């Protein structure tokens, strides 16, 4: 396995209630989970199971109703450039060029350092030559590369991804997954990746955390013990897939 064994992100009895028409609506039952440094963890579950809410809490955008998220021994109080979010769509700024989007988190650096970092990150995600382009001139896949580059540029410890490839076509999605794994292996950040796509989670994750429908609870955790690049036709892949479908409570045949 590719992890270091060091705990990085720790969810401690995290719950979330939303208020709807004066009534408390439970979205997340107490969640306990430890993610290790450098680990790639997928949060898998049906829509509305609270997995995105959990990610927003970890990112510091929402406060938990009870419990807390601890990163490197400190409770999360709010968003921080050490832990960067990649949103599903429209997260990058359409009014700024690719260059300026990627440089967003590097404003405090000296000019020449900034320049070096931005160019290196743009090269890493394969956007060389598009530095001056604006997001509206790019394809969906390229836009999401900008989002990933903007996150990577600040060398964060943790990257949160909320269905980042959900809006892409299936072929682009496959390419982006392979690219993400390549980048992850280069930089080794801890990644928490929310998805409702079973295949996506098996292709990416070291561990898949399966959520039950609302109120969200961890139904089970499956380790994906397949080396990268993963053979999507292997029998082990099929076994894991069956295991995940079982935990999700869905039949694997139509």
């Amino acid at each position, binding site marked *: 396995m590719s992890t270091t064994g060091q705990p990085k992100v720790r969810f401690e009895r995290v719950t979330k209630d939303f208020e709807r028409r004066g009534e408390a609506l439970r979205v997340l039952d107490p969640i306990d989970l430890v993610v290790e440094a450098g680990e790639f963890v997928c949060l898998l579950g049906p829509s509305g199971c609270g997995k995105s809410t959990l990610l927003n809490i970890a990112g510091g955008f929402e406060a938990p109703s009870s419990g807390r998220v601890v990163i490197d021994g400190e409770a999360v109080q709010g*968003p921080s450039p050490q832990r960067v979010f990649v949103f599903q769509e429209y997260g990058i700024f359409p009014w700024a060029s690719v260059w300026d989007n990627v440089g967003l988190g590097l404003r405090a650096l000296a000019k020449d350092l900034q320049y070096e970092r931005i160019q290196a990150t743009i090269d890493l995600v394969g956007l060389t030559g598009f530095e001056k382009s604006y997001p509206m001139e790019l394809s969906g896949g390229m836009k999401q590369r900008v989002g990933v580059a903007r996150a990577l540029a600040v060398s964060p410890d943790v990257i949160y991804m909320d269905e980042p490839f959900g809006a892409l076509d299936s072929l682009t999605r496959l390419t982006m997954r392979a690219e993400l794994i390549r980048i992850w292996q280069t930089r080794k950040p801890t990644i928490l990746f929310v998805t409702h796509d079973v295949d996506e989670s098996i292709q990416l994750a070291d561990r898949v955390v399966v959520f039950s429908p609302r109120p969200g609870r961890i139904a089970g955790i499956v380790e994906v013990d397949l080396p990268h690049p993963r053979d999507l036709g292997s029998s082990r892949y099929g076994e894991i897939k069956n295991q995940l479908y079982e935990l999700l409570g869905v039949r694997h045949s139509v």
Partner: protein
Amino acid sequence: MNLALLLGLAAVLSLLPAGKLPISVQRWLLPLAVALLGVAIWHGACALTQTTIFPTPLESFAAIFELARSSRLWNDVVASLFRVTWGFGLAALVGIPLGLWIGWRTRSFLAFNPLVQGFRPISPIAWIPIAILWFGIGDISAIFLIFLASIFPIVVGTTAAVQNIPQVYVRSASNFGLTGFELFRRVVLPAAMPQIITSLRIALGVAWLVIVAAEMVGMQSGLGYLVSDARNMGKRYDLVVAAMILIGLIGIVLDVLVRQLQNFDEVRWGFAKR
């Protein structure tokens, strides 16, 4: 009467094959043909009623040339544009920051929005006596009225622009540690800019729209003054209509000019067809 029929026929004939022409040609041909049809109806109505007061299209266009030759036209156009530029410019200068502030701060919205909505429906014409009382007869009164007419679309549009900024941009900004003025300059302003430009476009239209009313404060120049002057001095309705046509044409030019703002790289995303 024959002229009307001829014009109408020309308009209809030019419309018949229009569907086969490229869209770039249709963009010009269709409005011109419709305008021509309108002129034909106008001419026909004049001929049918045998009016001696209301001008025919020909008399109105002749009046435009008469104005142009007398150099009065140029003076009036410049005088009106001068007042609209100042009134609209000041409205943008005050209205954009005010709208940004009201849109960004919930409490300033609660405090000021009802006031804005209460002043907004008051016609600039109702302000004429107060304008004269405060600023006397002269350019400043006219500029004040244009300012009043155009500031509300700008404030309301800018407020809405800020309030409609998608949460994901604000979250991205706070994730990368943007706060205070930097958050404002790098995210709030650029995210709101397309809608601000649209509100400026509407406001400039309104500013030009009220030029006739604004020049009722005893001005002795301008296209608006020309309208009331031509009527008072011997019922020159041909000059009235000529001034109206000119106001309309200059309005089109102003709109085309302000629309150029949409072509900057930083705001083009807000106007793209999806």
